[in-house]
Structures are given as C-alpha cells and as structure tokens.
C-alpha cells in the first residue's frame, strides 16, 4: 500500500520557532531564532512521512540520515537522535543554525509538493541543543593507530576531518592561526545567528575526543607543510579557508571608515567589540552605514551595524533581490529589522573629508541583462545615472578569496585560478600525503559544503594511511 499525504492542514504547515521581536533584537546580540520547545519539536517530527526513498538525504552534503533521526525524536529518544546525526555530522548545533536547509535537505522534502517542508534544521538544532544542555557525552577516541595527522585550520572543514580521523583512531593535532578555534564560525558569523558558546562547546567535544588543539600557529610561518612531515605527521589536511577579503578597487577605498566585511566582523565577533570598552578592541560605527554586497556576509555586517547603534543602514547590491545569494530567511530578518535595500546600484568612488574620513559615495544605477549560460544575470551601468550618497561608514562585503600563506610557502603545491589549492576528486593535492577541503579547495562556499568536502578528504586520508603501497613509515 502506498502512503499518501494525510490531507490534514497541519501536515502541510511547518511549526514555526519563536523569534525575538525585531524592535527588541536590534538592541542586543542575543540569538534571533529561539529554537523549538520539546512540544514543538514533537509536533514537527510527526509531520515527517519517513519516505522509503528519502530525497532529503540526497540534499545533505554530509549525508545525515534525516528521517531516522526525526523518527527517533518522534519516539522521544533524543539521545538516539543526536547520535544518529553525529554519525555523519560533527557540528550539529552549528549546522542546525546556519545551514541553508531551504536549498538542500528541505528543498527535496516531498511535502514541498503540497505544503511546507519539514523544518529539518530546527529539529537538528533541537536535538543538538538538548544534548548541550544535558552535557555532551564524550568517549575519548581510542587512538590505537600510531599514525599522526596534522589538520591545518580549525574551521568547519578542519573540525570535521579532525573528528572523523580521531574516531578512526589516528592521533590528530589541529593547528589554528587565530587565538581560538572555529574559523569563520567565530570570526564571521555573528552571535545573534550562532552564539559563540555553541561553537566552543563543539570544540570542547573535539578536544575531549582526544584531538590536540594548537592555537596561534600560522602554518607556513611557524612550521611549513614540509616541516610538519619531518615532525612526524604522516598526512596533512589543509582547511585554511577563504579569508582574504576582496576590495572594489575604486578610488577612495582606503579612506577611514571603510572596512572590509572581514575586518568589521572580526572586530565585532572574534574580538567582541560590541562590548567595548570591556573588550578592548574598538570599532567605529557611524550614523549612516552602507554595506556593499548581497550575500550572507553583507547581511551579517548590516545587522551588526544596526545593533551597534547606526541610525540608517543600507545594503547596496548591483542586482535585485531575486539574485541575492544570501539565505531567504536572513533577508527577511534584515527586512524586519529595518535594513534598507538599494538594488541595482553600484559604487563608483568614495569621497573623504579633510581628515581622510569617508563622507560620501558616488553610485551608479545598473540594469540587468539576460541570463548567461550559467544562469547568472549580468549587469551593466546605466549612463548618466550617477548619484551621491552621504555615508560615514562603509562595509565592503563582495567576497573573500583563499588564504594565500600556505600556497606561498609550500614548494610544489599546485594552485588554480583564484588561489585555491588544486586537488583531485578525493581532495588529494599535488603533494603526496597532503589533502585539502573546504573553501581553500572549492572557493567561498557554505559551512556544510566545506564539511562535505572534508569528509571526502578524511576518507581519502584514511585510505592513504592504510594503503601498504604508500611511502609512510609506521
């Protein structure tokens, strides 16, 4: 007997999680989405049809067995649910918050044919948060293998590889250049979308598994990749991410008051400037703030600026809302919070005062052309459409390119256009025993896709280290 959709309206409508009201939340850095209560989670889990051929799993870059964990929630077996998620995903509390589920698992949900998909992200978050509240149960890994692997970069990719290989019994050292682990999860994504305690708790879990964590270690400078091998590591994973900010290269861009989104967010998130002067890293936010770009980073910057007291925050994007790469939910949140959107507008130059502070910018209107082969719509400026906009803070959020230091300092490591490290389908690089994953291998992408590539690389490293044909000495 085939299973048909129950024609109940609640089966087609997702349970909404509570949120902080916009007028309240723009005055704090607390989380916007509050997550499910147990009752809400159970109701939502009940909507899941537990399909025979679940398409949601196909949409998950790390292949979480979604219907199984949802069924476990339904049975109130929350420990079982989180264990099921952790089988495939080492950072569930993080992914439950920042994954673009609407473009992945939830997009494939069969319920979308007639109604709203299962809120897979919120259910994942529910199980993960409950685990954190109860205290994560960690059994240290049995590091029975005598082989050591160096993991470079403690962002989503590095953390994933570290856990996967530690669980396979390898001795792992995780090298992080900054003073704390998490990568973009701590320097990029704001507290109100991803509280730092959540990231810290996942990192604690990883160190309790037996992974050695080494901060303040910029590989390429303190040790080269070659030196890691001479120090006794038999394989190296590079997950150094895309952290080099792009600038517009228009006149006046180095005036005071113009930040890369990276600088702005590093000051706010990593250095906690929002508590200045308690935390000692200052950040100047003016009255009229303009953010340039249309991605999640642009929205995060704009919403931070709003919370830091700006009177008027505008996002300038050269295409339209339809082309914005940011998550739909975050665009809606920004809208609710009173962020202005100026579409089809591009900056031409910045104008400074006598002290070198930005005071205005010149913009030009753009028009969309037809789609190209890749489906992306190009834009072209409209002649004589220049305008002057008064601003005192500008945040440039037009993308980031791979961190270049390892590429500069590693002889024989092949790179590709755009600065990414070249690798094959298993994420093996041109150097024996050296693997990559995350943004350094693919260019700027999402947390979960970085984790997906990292899983593939971890598996390849395991194959490499267990293959008697390779050169590693045991």
């Amino acid at each position, binding site marked *: 007997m085939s299973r048909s959709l129950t024609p109940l309206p609640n089966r087609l409508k997702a349970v909404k999680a509570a949120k902080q009201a916009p007028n309240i939340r723009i005055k704090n850095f607390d989380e916007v989405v509050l997550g499910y209560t147990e009752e809400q989670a159970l109701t939502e889990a009940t909507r899941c049809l537990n399909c025979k051929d679940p398409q949601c799993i196909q949409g998950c870059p790390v292949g979480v067995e979604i219907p199984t964990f949802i069924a476990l929630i339904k049975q109130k077996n929350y420990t079982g649910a989180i264990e099921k998620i952790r089988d495939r995903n080492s950072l569930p509390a993080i992914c439950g918050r920042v994954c673009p589920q609407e473009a992945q698992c939830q997009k494939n949900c069969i319920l979308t044919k007639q109604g709203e998909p299962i809120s897979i992200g919120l259910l994942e978050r529910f199980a993960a948060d409950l685990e954190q509240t109860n205290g994560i149960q960690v059994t240290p890994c049995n590091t029975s293998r005598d082989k050591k692997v160096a993991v470079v970069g403690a962002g989503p990719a590095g953390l994933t590889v570290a856990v996967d290989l530690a669980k396979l019994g390898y001795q792992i050292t995780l090298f992080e250049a900054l003073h704390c682990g998490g990568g973009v999860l701590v320097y990029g994504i704001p507290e109100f979308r991803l509280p730092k305690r959540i990231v810290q708790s996942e990192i604690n879990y990883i160190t309790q598994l037996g992974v050695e964590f080494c901060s303040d270690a910029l590989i390429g400078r303190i040790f080269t990749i070659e030196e890691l091998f001479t120090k006794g590591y038999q394989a190296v994973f590079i997950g150094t991410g895309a952290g080099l900010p792009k600038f517009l290269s228009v006149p006046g861009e180095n005036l005071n008051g113009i930040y890369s989104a990276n600088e702005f967010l590093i000051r706010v998130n990593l250095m906690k400037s929002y508590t200045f002067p308690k935390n000692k890293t200052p950040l100047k936010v003016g009255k009229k703030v303009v953010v340039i770009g249309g991605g999640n980073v642009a929205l995060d910057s704009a919403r931070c600026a709003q919370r830091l007291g700006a009177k008027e925050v505008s996002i300038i994007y050269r295409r339209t809302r339809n082309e914005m790469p940011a998550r739909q939910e975050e665009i809606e949140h920004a809208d609710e919070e009173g962020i202005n959107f100026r579409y089809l507008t591009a900056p031409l130059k910045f104008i400074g005062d006598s*002290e070198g502070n930005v005071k205005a910018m010149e913009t030009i209107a753009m028009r969309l052309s037809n789609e190209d082969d890749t489906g992306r719509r190009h834009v072209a400026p409209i002649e004589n459409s220049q305008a002057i906009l008064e601003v005192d803070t500008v945040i440039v959020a037009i993308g980031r390119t791979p961190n270049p230091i390892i590429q500069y300092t590693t002889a024989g490591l092949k790179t590709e256009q755009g600065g990414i490290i070249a690798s094959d389908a298993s994420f093996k690089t041109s150097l024996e025993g050296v693997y990559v994953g995350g943004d350094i291998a693919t260019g700027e992408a999402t947390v979960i896709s970085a984790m997906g590539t990292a899983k593939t690389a971890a598996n390849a490293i395991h194959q490499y280290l267990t293959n008697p044909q390779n050169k590693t000495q045991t």
Partner: protein
Amino acid sequence: MLKPKLEINQVTEKEQLNSVTKKITIYAPDIAAKAKAGQFVIFKVNEDSERIPLTISSWDQEKQTISHIFQEIGFSTMELGRLEVGQKIQNVAGPLGNASEIKNFGTAVVVCGGLGTAVAYPVAKELKEAGNKVITIMGARTKELFILEKEMAAISDEVYFASDDGTKGQKGFVSDVLKSLIAKNYTFNIAFAIGPPIMMSVIADITRPYSIKTIASLNPIMVDGMGMCGACRVTIAGKTQFACVDGPEFDAHQVNFKELIQRLKSYCNEEKQVITPQVNGENCQCHGH
C-alpha cells in the same frame, strides 16, 4: 637546584630601557627558532585584550626566547608593560610578515627614529653579517630617549645621532644627517628607513632624487595580522597591499605615506576611552613607532 620549567609565552626578563621604553623577553621556542629580521608577532595579553602587532627586536635560539621593545602609549602596550617576570601572555602568534631581504648591497644606511631603532637593530645586524658596510643614523627627541646605542655601535661601521633638542649628536632630525652625508659624497647602495611614518616619508623624499633604493618598515593598524581583515592596507605604487602579509617592508619611494598617516589616526578617540587616567588628555600616540 633544578630550574623551574618555563611555560610557553612566559615572561623571562623585563627591563626599563628609559623613562618611556620597556623591553620584554618571552619564552617562545618555536618562534625563536624561526624569527628573522623584519618579522613581527601578534600579542593578545589577556582574554579581553586587543591583538597588537610588535616587531621582534631580538631572539635567542639557545634560550628559546624572543624580545620586544615597546613604549606604553596605548592601553594594550600598558597592559603588556604591567606583566612581570613569570607571568604569561595569553596568546603570541608569529613570526608573521615577510623577513627583510638582506644581502650584500655594498654600503647600507640604516636610518631609524625613536622606537623604530628596536625594529632597525636586527636589520642592521643582519646587513653587517651579510658583508655590508653599515652606516647607522639614529634619532630621538632627547638624549634620554635613545635606545640600543651600544648594540648599534657594535655592528655599525659608523653611527650618527640626531636629537630634536641637540642633547645628543646633531641638533635636528635624522634626515638632516642623511642629507649632510650625501652632501659629503657618501655613496649608499641601499637605505632602510624605520621610524614614524613622517620620518620615513622625509627620508624617501631625500633618497629619491639620488635613486637610492629605500626600504620602509610600515606600522599600520592590524587586527588578525594574517591577511584576513585588511585593516593594515596600504597603497604601494597605486595598488592596495596588506602590510601584514605583503610587507611589512616596502619600497619607500612607492608608499602613500599621507594615507598611512591618516589611517593610523582611525582609533585615537576610542583609545582614550580605554586608557588609564594618568595619560588621559595627552595627545594620542597610538600606533606610532
């Protein structure tokens, strides 16, 4: 008796060089093994502290230590200055930045002002070791503020001094000394200018007409110091570069010093908010060499 084991990032020595300048030595074996002239580290003293860049002024591979000379001109350097021997700095990351490009140029002139002398010393030392004739010009406001005079004298073929008030060496600026040496037909194959941006800018203007290759060590504001934030961006030959990963040394004739000086002033007011009361009201000197 067994010496207690040192911990990473522990302060092993602390010295007051003059009324405003301190030297701090830290146990950092991995950094000491790698450090080269021109490189810097990022310090984060406590949990709530800023990340601040400080050039490595000397290192000792035997003792596995690195030393930094600094003035307590802002909150973070004061915080560093309050540390006593035995205490630890929470985070020390380095060595960062590119090392100075040192080879036998022939005759090298090292022009340094104020705290820049601490940055210039390892450069001058390596220049000497590479076989250069090293002529050093050191400047400070007044006699008491000179540092590393003996050390510089030991590795220089000639040393000249200039002070604003004439209490040591020539009355005036290091640039005046450089001009007079050039007038005396000294030939320089390379110049290193290390000090306040205005000084480096003036030196670049003096050497430009003589086509003397001149290297400046830039000191912009940094946050991560690893190429991620772009706070340290400088314009070199019309192109934006990051001092932390592309520098900190650049061709002084190509540096937009006016922009560098403006950008250094970005956070003067905020600095006053966190600084201790005894220096309130003084002019902000943050991020000057």
